[in-house]
């Protein structure tokens, strides 16, 4: 049926509106009567930090020598409010991922890897396990709407507290954990019956709105005797207002998670359609911090689709102080490994495509509670892989910062960036490359 000129034959023309994914989803929905729930993050094409480029040094500014000249990477969170501020050696942290969604070995691997390079990990919707406390030198304790496993003893053991208002994959939605993953230990930690399809609360049970949240943060600080900083995590929806209100509520750091952000289990319709991309969210959060005169004082942590040192450098240049990684960290410890291709095939998928973090049958042993599968992940090797990866990101970030003449990565600024598309220029509020045009701001 092939055409002489290599074109698709007329009778195999794929519809743009009803492509094969759309058709398969309609068929799946018709067969099952349930919305698609999956892991990973948005898969459709979205504006990303790849739509920005770094300008580097030139005649008017000089670069620093790679490897030789110092280029700092450290970040301190909560210097003014907490007796023990969080001190990170690199501005790249590991995002909140629950024990339950991840195996105990995976949590251990994340802790080992992050600790080896002097950065933090974060608990998740389901409480703190002794394994992760032991293996994470800096552990952020999430305070979530569900309050599963929420325990003041663990709160006091934490190095920081993160009040989760939302997540980039699902701003406005609560957590999910499917029955296959609610085994005895997970059920007990969350006070739930084994095997149920857990749908966590999407709203905190004892506060509504920023005025209440300010009082909630006072309570949290009182309970830990003002020892550790408090972060607020929001899904990127209205980042200008959410950041401003987080500052008002008393946060030491605001974590803004863009719509690309990963998830362990969420409705596909949420993952792909709710929230705004990271590149659009960071500048709005920064604008709020600047308007309140607290930029670089109240720290901004950007998340959602951060993959490389280039992403880290660009996020910082846009005004973030640090980033946090979910999906990339899981890939680093072994997710979607081509060595497991036969097993991915048996699940009807392929390495590089697998997204079913919700299913509990992860061949790499990361997003599972099945003891046999979980035992496949060696937490020491996983930790080494993560440390290597984080080191690469840190050095890449420094490489870009030095090329821009910065003695600390935090000195990167929007002036170091240009946009490749009109859309990215408008969202990131940096000029379209080769022009001085920022859509919506100036006409040049």
């Amino acid at each position: 049926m092939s055409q002489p000129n290599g074109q698709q034959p007329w009778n195999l023309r794929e519809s743009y509106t009803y492509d094969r994914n759309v058709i398969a989803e309609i068929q799946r929905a018709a067969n099952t009567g349930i919305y698609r729930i999956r892991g990973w993050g948005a898969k459709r094409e979205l504006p990303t930090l790849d739509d920005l480029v770094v300008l580097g040094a030139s005649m008017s500014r000089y670069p620093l020598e790679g490897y030789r000249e110092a280029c700092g990477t450290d970040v301190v969170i909560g210097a003014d409010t907490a007796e023990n501020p969080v001190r990170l050696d690199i501005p790249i942290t590991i995002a909140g991922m629950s024990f339950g969604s991840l195996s105990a070995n995976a949590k251990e691997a994340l802790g080992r890897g992050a600790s080896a390079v002097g950065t933090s990990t974060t608990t998740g919707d389901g409480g703190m396990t002794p394994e992760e406390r032991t293996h994470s030198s800096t552990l952020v304790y999430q305070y979530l709407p569900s309050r599963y496993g929420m325990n003041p003893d663990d709160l006091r053991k934490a190095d920081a507290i993160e009040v989760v208002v939302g997540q980039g994959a699902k701003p406005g939605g609560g957590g999910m954990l499917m029955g296959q993953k609610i085994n005895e230990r997970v059920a007990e930690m969350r006070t739930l019956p084994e095997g149920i399809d857990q749908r966590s609360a999407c709203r905190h049970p004892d506060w509504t709105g920023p005025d209440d949240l300010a009082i909630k943060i006072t309570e949290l600080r009182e309970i830990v005797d003002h020892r550790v900083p408090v972060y607020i995590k929001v899904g990127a929806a209205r980042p200008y207002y959410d950041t401003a209100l987080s500052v008002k509520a008393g946060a030491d750091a605001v974590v803004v998670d863009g719509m690309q952000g990963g998830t362990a289990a969420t409705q596909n319709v949420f993952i792909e359609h709710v929230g705004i991309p990271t590149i659009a969210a960071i500048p709005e959060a920064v604008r709020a911090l600047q308007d309140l005169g607290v930029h670089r004082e109240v720290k901004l942590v950007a998340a959602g689709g951060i993959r490389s040192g280039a992403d880290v450098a660009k996020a910082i240049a846009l005004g973030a102080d640090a980033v946090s990684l979910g999906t990339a960290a899981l890939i680093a410890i072994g997710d979607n490994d081509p060595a497991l291709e036969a097993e991915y095939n048996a699940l009807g998928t392929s390495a590089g495509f697998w997204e079913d973090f919700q299913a509990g049958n992860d061949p790499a042993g990361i997003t599972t509670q099945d003891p046999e599968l979980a035992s496949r992940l060696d937490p020491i090797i996983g930790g080494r892989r993560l440390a290597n990866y984080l080191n690469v990101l840190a050095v890449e970030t420094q490489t870009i910062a030095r090329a821009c003449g910065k003695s600390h990565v935090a000195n990167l600024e929007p002036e170091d960036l240009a946009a490749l598309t009109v859309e990215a220029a408008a969202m990131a509020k940096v000029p379209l490359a080769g022009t001085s045009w920022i859509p919506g701001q100036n006409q040049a």
Partner: protein
Amino acid sequence: MSESIFDLADVTVRELNQTLHANESGTFRVLNPRGAHAVAAGINSDVEVHIEGSVGYYCAGMHQRGTVRVHGNASTGLAENIMSGTVHITGSATMSAGATGHGGLLVIEGNAGSRCGISMKGVDIVVGGNVGHMSAFMGQAGNLVVLGDAGADLGDSLYEADIYVRGAVESLGSDCVEKELRPEDLETISRLLSAAGLAAEPTDFTRYGSARELYNFNVDDINAELAEGQS
């Protein structure tokens, strides 16, 4: 034993809480709370605290072990996430009293506002008066005993918590149903009433629990059914 007095007209809540966190035992009397927030939050010892007056949000938040008695009313989130010990107030509490409590006993002699016992995870709550709407919403474990009436949508999306109401229930939430009052329920009710120091006849209560119909998603599989039909 001697009693320490903290007059919140003169000292800050921070000083009070710091002292309560630093002591393993002792009796403390708090004067002039004037609606202050987070009073006696984060106790984790056998201290006994008497608060003379009304408190703001999150009084006795995340309470462990000791006893806190409020001689007055309390605002939002009284004894939220209580783990153990006792919190007892003579007046009424507003929203979300005992929210997410994992254990211990919360007694409210007056009324409780909306979402009393929301997401409760093992706490026992006894309310002398009425509870507001959406009480015990998503309640996972523990007991809510209400001597008065309950507002709309009681026990919505309930898991394994038990709710006992003596008076009228305006409406039940999704998946919450009336259940038989078993001998062990009568025991639970009388045990909690006596712990709370409140009198009522256990047999006058009605029990409500989860129909457990929301526990798992309903998934059809027409293709599998057809394939089976052919084989």
